[in-house]
């Protein structure tokens, strides 16, 4: 699993130093980038899973929060009695706030850990959604192929049969035409083999799906019986 990326955004060097030290003492530390409010521009910031906003100069928190993408995970770690925070709380009710008290660092690490896990879970869910969409496209193609199998087989019947009919009377054909018809016949046979492989693959997949469904039902049955 890749390391998470965290941006610490603060104008207090001590805050950044302490938090970084605490994090690095942990078993699994994220990649940390420290920025101050002057150098902060989210579009230029390195890729991040979490932004920790620490104490910044007066009036800067609002502009920082405004510049963040709505989906960005943010932990705000400022004194609870700051006037700016009071206004922010009503504007961003879901903002995670950790008051800057004696044990703030430990609390922040716990909350950050959960936030990063949530970000990771979201990332996995999005990837699963993308995969499901891709699989759905493949399934549509597969269904189309299955529906077309009948038409392909009918067309092949004509190709193979007529080639065989012509080959029954080789004397009526020039050697070049004979060779060409033989090629057409053998290519039609090859398409037939491909279609048969496709059919058996479809049957195997159906069987596997049935087995998997039966297994799931078997696993679910004892649970529902207990209810």
């Amino acid at each position: 699993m890749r390391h998470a990326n965290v941006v610490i955004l603060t104008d207090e060097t001590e805050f950044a130093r302490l938090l970084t030290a605490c994090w690095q003492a942990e078993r699994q530390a994220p990649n940390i980038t420290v920025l101050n409010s002057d150098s902060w521009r989210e579009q230029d910031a390195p890729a991040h899973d979490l932004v920790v906003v620490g104490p910044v100069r007066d009036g800067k928190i609002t502009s920082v929060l405004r510049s963040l993408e709505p989906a960005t995970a943010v932990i705000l770690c400022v004194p609870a009695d700051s006037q700016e925070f009071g206004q922010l709380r009503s504007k961003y009710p879901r903002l995670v706030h950790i008051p800057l008290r004696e044990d703030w660092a430990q609390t922040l690490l716990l909350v950050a850990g959960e936030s990063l896990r949530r970000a990771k879970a979201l990332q996995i869910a999005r990837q699963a959604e993308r995969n499901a969409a891709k699989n759905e496209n493949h399934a549509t193609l597969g269904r189309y192929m299955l529906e077309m199998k009948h038409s392909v087989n009918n067309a092949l019947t004509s190709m193979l049969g007529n080639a065989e009919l012509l080959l029954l009377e080789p004397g009526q054909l020039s050697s070049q035409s004979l060779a060409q018809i033989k090629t057409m016949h053998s290519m039609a046979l090859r398409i037939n083999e491909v279609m048969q492989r496709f059919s058996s693959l479809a049957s195997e997949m159906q069987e596997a799906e049935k087995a998997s469904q039966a297994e799931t039902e078997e696993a679910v049955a004892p649970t529902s019986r207990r209810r």
Partner: protein
Amino acid sequence: MQKLAADVHLCSVDKYGESTAVHKKVLIVDDSPAEVKLMQGLLEKEGYWPIGLHDPKRVEETITNERPSVILLDVVMPDRNGFQVCRDLKGNAEFNMIPVILVTSKDSASDKYWGQQQGADGYVTKPFTREDLLRAVRRFA
């Protein structure tokens, strides 16, 4: 003149009034003219007398008129599919002795099983080779 068996058909009579060639009639029921023509071509070369029919609703009428020895029956057809035709023929005392071979691109085990359940005597999957078709027909005619 010698009386012919029900499934043998007089093809020509020579100048002495003797029957010289007998061809067994094979009724081909398929909505695709190209496939009927193809099967006719293959069977004719083997000395059969193929009769093509594109309309599955006229099967009984054609059997009554032509008295074929064997029926090659497509499955996927509009208005009346091959399974229905086969079931109707096998349920009819007048026609149920005529062998029916289903000739179809439906190739799954369940399709074959369902064909058997309708009383079909043979099953040939499309695309077939000349040998596949002839082997199935020769079992009955």
